[in-house]
Every structure is written in structure tokens, then in C-alpha cells.
């Protein structure tokens, strides 16, 4: 299968460029040994991509961890502190540049936190019912499928615009349909007048998805704020990173207390790899042409989605499984 080949080659490539020694480290919570350098390299590679494109990367890292046989429950929960670490850096930068609208961020946080709490309770019940892996796989197929397809379309548009030597179209003007909704509120710092209802729904959904899928949600939140709510890009990035930071802090604590699936060693490896990878990604993004990388990323996202879809629909070799021993 194509996506399988792409992924295994990506991992092999990572291994070969780093001439990776096989240093196995036993993860105390996941209860299994992993290759230290592979995990750090994975964190760094995803961090690099996220620095390059300005999105969190949780939507790539969690599935890759699952493909490395780390229990989905541990992969998702351990993703929370990793995302918190990378968004700390972004929030600090936004704070220094005075780009952070605390009012808007604070309001997003209310919905985000409610979504997180409910998401973690759903996570626990799915785990108990034995349907957690399925739920995670299904959400990834859907989400990554949509995101990957959108990215491909975006690449195609840029490519076509270049070919015709036309200027690439600016942001598609969407009608401000939410202007008619009640509960309009003016956010002074960013100069936006918005209805609180769609804002709440959006932030709730992001918080929920973050807790269940191990993603920050920046790659949904930022475009939504840009296109639907007409926020400036600096405001959108700052505010979404602010929400992600705090929802992920709450998610970390709740996963640790309720599900007890946060692995300290795995988190440490991912964080160290991720924060430094992201910095190099940001620098590279300033010098490199990102279009070809964008295509690669789109293909990678789609292949992860296909891999999950494939695993779900192929007749399994083994019909039985033993629930996590815990």
C-alpha cells in the first residue's frame, strides 16, 4: 500500500540521515521500550514542519506515535504537554510583540476548557468501552483527510496562479454571516466585533478534539479566525496559541489524574525534539520556498489519513485483541 510505503520510508529516512544508534529506553507509563533517538528525531522533524508552516504538528505526531505501536491512549495524553511546550514559546513571542488580545483569548478559553473537560470524560468512557482506538482512528481519517485535501487544493491554486503569472488570489471574501447573530461583542484590542455564539462553538470543538485526538487545533483555529472572523493573522496566531496553551495545560493535568496515561519520558523526548525543531523550522521558513514543502506536507497528511482508513477497512489478520493491561 502506497501510504504505508511512504510512511515506512519516511521513518527509514529519518533513521538513516541520523545514523541512529539503537538506544532503547523503557517508557514507564507506556510500559514498553522505544528508541530514544527515533522519538527525539520524530519530535524534531514534526517540530521543524510545524515551525515551517506555523501549525502545531500534534495532528502529525500523534498518528506517527500510534504507528510506532505506542498505545493510542498514551500517545494522545502525552501529546498534551508537548503541545503546551511549543505553544508557550509562541505565546511568549506574541506577548512581547503585544499581539495578544487577552479578552478574545480569554473568551476562547472558556469554550476551549469546557470542550477539554468533556473531551477527557468521553476519552475515558471510550477507553473503558474498548472503542477508543476506533474513535481516534476515525477522527484522524476524517480530519486529516479534509485538511490534506484542502492543502492539496491550495497547492494546486498556487501552482495555477503562478503558471498564468497572475497574482495569487487574496483571502476569499466570505460573507460575514455571523454578523446577524445575537450576542455581538467588541474586542477592543484587536478591533473585532463578533457574535460570541460561533466563537464559543468553535473553541468548544477545538478543546474537545484536542482532548480526544491529541492535537492543539491551531490548524483549524487559525484559518477559522482568519477567514470567518476576519481577524488579522498576528491576532489569530496569538489568540489561538493562547487558547491552545491553557487547554493543553488543563488536558495534561486531567489526563494525568483521570486516565493516568501521560508518560514523562516520552513527553520529555518529544518536547526536547519539538521545541528545537520548531525553532529551526521557523528560521528555515524565512529563507526557503515553502511551496514544495507544502506539497510534501499535504501528501504526508493524506498518507497518514489513508493509512488509518486502510487499517480500519482491511480485513484484519487478527480479529482478536487484548485490552491494555492496566
Amino acid at each position, binding site marked *: 500500500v502506497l501510504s504505508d510505503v511512504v510512511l515506512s520510508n519516511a521513518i527509514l529516512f529519518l533513521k538513516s540521515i541520523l545514523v541512529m544508534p539503537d538506544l532503547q529506553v*523503557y517508557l514507564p507509563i507506556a510500559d514498553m521500550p522505544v528508541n530514544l533517538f527515533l522519538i527525539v528525531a520524530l519530535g524534531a522533524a514534526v517540530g521543524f514542519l510545524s515551525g515551517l508552516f506555523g501549525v502545531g504538528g500534534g495532528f502529525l505526531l500523534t498518528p506517527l506515535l500510534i504507528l510506532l505501536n505506542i498505545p493510542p491512549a498514551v500517545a494522545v495524553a502525552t501529546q498534551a504537554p508537548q503541545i503546551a511546550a511549543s505553544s508557550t514559546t509562541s505565546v*511568549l513571542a506574541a506577548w512581547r510583540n503585544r499581539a495578544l488580545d487577552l479578552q478574545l483569548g480569554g473568551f476562547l478559553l472558556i469554550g476551549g476548557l469546557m470542550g477539554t473537560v468533556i473531551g477527557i470524560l468521553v476519552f475515558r468512557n471510550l477507553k473503558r468501552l474498548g472503542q477508543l482506538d476506533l474513535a481516534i482512528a476515525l477522527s484522524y481519517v476524517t480530519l486529516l483527510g479534509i485538511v490534506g485535501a484542502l492543502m492539496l487544493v491550495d497547492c494546486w491554486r498556487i501552482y495555477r496562479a503562478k503558471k498564468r503569472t497572475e497574482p495569487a488570489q487574496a483571502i476569499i471574501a466570505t460573507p460575514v454571516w455571523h454578523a446577524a447573530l445575537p450576542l455581538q461583542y467588541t474586542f477592543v484590542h484587536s478591533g473585532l466585533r463578533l457574535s460570541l455564539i460561533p466563537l464559543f462553538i468553535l473553541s468548544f470543538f477545538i478543546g474537545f478534539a484536542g482532548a480526544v485526538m491529541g492535537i492543539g487545533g491551531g490548524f483549524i483555529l487559525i484559518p477559522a479566525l482568519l477567514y470567518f472572523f476576519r481577524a488579522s493573522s498576528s491576532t489569530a496566531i496569538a489568540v489561538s496559541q493562547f487558547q491552545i496553551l491553557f487547554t493543553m495545560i488543563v488536558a495534561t*493535568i486531567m489526563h494525568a489524574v483521570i486516565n493516568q496515561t501521560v508518560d514523562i519520558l516520552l513527553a520529555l523526548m518529544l518536547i526536547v525534539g519539538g521545541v528545537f525543531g520548531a*525553532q529551526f523550522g521557523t528560521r528555515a521558513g524565512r529563507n526557503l520556498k515553502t511551496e514544495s514543502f507544502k506539497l510534501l506536507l499535504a501528501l504526508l497528511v493524506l498518507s497518514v489519513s489513508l493509512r488509518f482508513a486502510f487499517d480500519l477497512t482491511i480485513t484484519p489478520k487478527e480479529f*482478536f485483541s487484548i485490552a491494555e493491561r492496566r
Partner: protein
Amino acid sequence: MRACASFLWSLIRSALVAAMWVMSFTMAYAETLVTSLSSREVEITSTYTGAKLKVYGVYEIIEKYVRNAQPKDYVIVVTVLGPTHHFTVRQKGKVGPAWFNRSTQVFKDVPSFVAVLSSKPIAETTNLETARNLFLGLDLNITPNHLLIEMSEKRKEFREAMIRLGQQEGRYQQDENAVFFMKIKDKKGKTTGASSSLFEANIQLPATVMTGTYTVQVGLFAEGVLLDKSIDYFEVKKTGFEATIVNWVQDHSWSYGVAMCLMALFFGWLASMIFRRD
């Protein structure tokens, strides 16, 4: 006549006594088994990827009382049992285009690790009846025979899957050529074909094991009969860092969660300090 008869009688009597004497000594024909383990503690540390233990032992034949002893064919059976656990086994079914877990069976108090190691196939060692009574074999240690008989066909299928998956993980093993008798050496130091009474077997623990007490039972068999047995224990535990973390997570999960957050914040802050653009 009377003297002759009494003489004959005493002759028969002494012959009987002599026969009983011989028999009593044949009854005293005995073997004892002494075993030991290479280690009684297996530590799961941050470099643990599995462990290997050795069972050593020797059987001794108390021969001095024996007359006309035929050399027997001795068999050693080693059974290693890990701590028990409730196992939830799930079966996938197709709904629409996708496969997902549809039915579930729970097996209570099943050993998480079973290794049955012997020097000969169990079937050749003893009869089925004895094997069942003494729990010889992987199957019998997972579910005793009387419970297996009562099991429904569906549940049996789940049970077989549980064993198969355990075997793939290396938690369930049955090896009928895993106990080795050391060869006797002649005076020049060359090994002869003959086996000594000294034996050893390797216990291979996989990367995923449960912590707790493991028992090692060794049985000495000949002619289908259990002659002697020994029992020993070893402990698998998380030590050092691993143990600290597990205890922390389980007993003080709030502070663990908060510490995870502080760690994340610290690294995020550190990165922004190092890579600051001014």
C-alpha cells in the same frame, strides 16, 4: 517328618522375610531434586528490554539401598507462572466498511506469564490424567481442565485468541526441548554421550511483563510418575526511576500532572530565551 516340615517352614519363612527385605529396599529407591535460580530479582529499569534467567538443578538417586536398579529415563518439567490478571479479550466485527471491536470476553485470574519448559514432550512424559492433575502444559495453566469443559464454544475461541496473542508477545511459552542435561565428560575432558543428572533451562522474560512474584515449579518425572518437585520464586519489579514514576502517577496524580505542565512551560520558555530574536 516334623523336624523336616518345620525346617521347610522356617526356610519358606526366611525366604519370605528376605523377599520382603529386598522389596522394602526397592521401595526405598528414591530420587531427590535440588534446584536454584540464577537470580531472584528482575529489575525493570530504563534500559529494560526483556530478561533471561536460568533454572539450575540436579537430581540425586539414593542408590545405596537399591538392588537391580534399571536406569530410568528422567524428565524435567519446569513451569514458570507470573502474577494473575483479568484479561479483556475483544473481537473485531465488520460494520459497514470498517472493522471494530464488537464482542468482549473477560477472563479472570489468568496468569500473565506462563512458560512450560521440559526436556521431553509432556505427552511422552506422563499420561493425560496426571498432566491435568499436575497442570503440565501451557493450556492447563491458563484454564484448568474442569473449567475448560464447561466453556462455551464462543468463549473457547476467545480463550485461544488470548493464548495466541500471549505467545506472540512472548508471555506464553511452551518448549519441549528447553531443559538440557549437561553431558558427562571423560577423564580427558571430552564429552561422552551420556547425560549427567545436572540440568539447566532458560527463562526468557519479554519486554512487556507484569510486575509481581513469579513462581518456578520444577518436577522430576520417570515412567510417567512424579518423583520429586521443588518450588522457587523470583520477583519482577520496577526500580529506581521507573518505580518512582509509577508510584508518583498512581499515588499523587495531581502533582504529577502539574509537574508535567511545569516541565512543558519550562522548555517552552527555555526555547524562547535561547532563540530570542533580539
